């Protein structure tokens, strides 16, 4: 499709129709802004398709908690609007403990959540076994967070995109952006130029192709999904050590994270690697991830896995996303770097940014996510996370 050159195409140009870009498109369109979404490949084709689709509050730091909690509440409010194929499953979460120390951590979390209005309760071994008979009976207990859920992100993303389009947004497929300028212009691969008041880069890991200095590195994850075993697990299961794995600055790590899908299949994660950018499965790490899962739920060993895949989380040094104007820019904005919380925080990120763009008071303090919090040193070509100073 031939696009107009040298004229203002839209109020907002969003680069990337993943879940964050699509949510932002909807939020902007709702505010009456003219929105154009530019997608190079297929909507939801990046991390959105690869991840676990969990809606979960993480409390690694207050800003993370605030954004993920806000995001979770927004998804919860809208669950009845979502199509069935988005598979919103209100299964709740069990943060599983393996030791007394972790049980203490569970209690600390409970209190922390309570302060933010998120209901949870610590359950002991007996109650845990009743909730999840297939977990190892030796686990001392868990924190049960009943109001969390899982969704199927590709369909949820498609739904948000369709909403945006119904509100007047335009999706441009097969549209590859080559460069962005702070005058609001973007150059496409076919040589044409689009302009807007604001250009938002919501391209996940690929955002660095447009702004090479972004403090973003791809953090590889691997997943396995099983055949259908309905009721084998009933809740999203995460080990209390998960957050530490997520916040590690270097190296490979695994953490127990298992989910029931609406189909009855079981999705098993999680792993994180910095150095590997290949789309091939790293077998030793997959083995480690599965072995860890077997510790928590031994019965998993004999279930059949039917597919495995890799994905890349866009990770910033402090694991908080980049939401706001690109440093030193007036018209280039960023909506990326969500690491493993892209789905959970999509609606919250979108509303935060859209409010800022529309001159409204945002519902959350945007400070912690301000891209200018990093002073850029040009990142090295990849084996370690970029050096930044804060």
């Amino acid at each position, binding site marked *: 499709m031939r696009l107009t050159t040298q004229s203002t195409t839209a109020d907002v140009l969003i680069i990337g129709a993943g879940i964050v870009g699509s949510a932002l498109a909807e939020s902007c369109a709702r505010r009456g802004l003219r929105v154009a979404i530019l997608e190079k490949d297929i909507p939801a084709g990046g991390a959105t398709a690869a991840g676990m689709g969990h809606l979960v509050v993480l409390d690694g730091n207050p800003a993370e908690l605030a954004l993920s909690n806000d995001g979770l509440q927004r998804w919860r409010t809208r669950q009845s609007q979502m199509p069935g194929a988005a598979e919103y499953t209100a299964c709740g979460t069990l943060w599983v403990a393996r030791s007394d120390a972790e049980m203490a951590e569970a209690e600390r979390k409970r209190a922390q959540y309570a302060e933010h209005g998120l209901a949870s309760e610590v359950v002991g071994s007996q109650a845990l076994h009743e909730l999840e008979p297939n977990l190892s009976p030796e686990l001392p207990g868990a924190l049960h967070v009943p109001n969390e859920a899982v969704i199927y992100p590709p369909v949820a993303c498609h739904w948000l995109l369709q909403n945006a389009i119904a509100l007047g947004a335009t999706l441009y497929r097969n549209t590859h952006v080559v460069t962005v300028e702070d005058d609001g212009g973007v150059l496409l691969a076919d040589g044409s130029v689009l302009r807007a008041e604001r250009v938002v880069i919501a391209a996940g890991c690929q955002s660095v192709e447009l702004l090479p200095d972004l403090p973003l590195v791809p953090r590889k994850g691997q997943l396995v999904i099983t055949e*259908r*075993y309905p009721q084998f697990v009933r809740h999203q299961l995460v080990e209390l050590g998960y957050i530490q794995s997520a916040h590690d600055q270097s190296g490979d790590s695994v953490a127990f994270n298992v989910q029931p899908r609406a189909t009855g299949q079981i999705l098993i994660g999680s792993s994180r690697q910095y150095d590997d950018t290949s789309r091939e499965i790293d077998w030793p790490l997959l083995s480690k991830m599965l072995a860890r899962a077997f510790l928590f739920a031994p019965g998993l060993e004999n279930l059949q896995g039917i597919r495995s895949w890799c994905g890349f989380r866009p990770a910033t040094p402090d694991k908080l996303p980049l939401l706001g104007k690109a440093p030193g820019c007036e018209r280039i904005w960023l909506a990326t770097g969500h690491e493993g919380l892209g789905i959970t925080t999509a609606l919250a990120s979108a509303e935060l940014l859209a409010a800022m763009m529309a001159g409204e008071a945002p519902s959350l303090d945007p400070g912690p996510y301000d891209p200018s919090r990093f002073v850029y040193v040009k990142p090295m070509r990849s084996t370690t996370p970029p050096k930044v100073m804060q």
Partner: protein
Amino acid sequence: MTVRLLFENQALEVQEGITLAAALAGTGPIGFRYSVSGEPRAAFCGMGTCFECRVTVDGIAHQRACQIIVRDGMEVRREG
């Protein structure tokens, strides 16, 4: 020579050395499983590619019947 097995609690006497899919398809109860939308399904490709002949054998789910030789005392259940 025959072999006795149970399919959905019904005893079947079948020829030894044949596949479970051949045994189930030939002796009456035709559906092997129900699809995700509830349709009855049975063996289709005959060679382990289509997964339509999945049944639970001796408590283990999702076994392809066309690649299993019948065994005396086998307990087979439908899925889905």
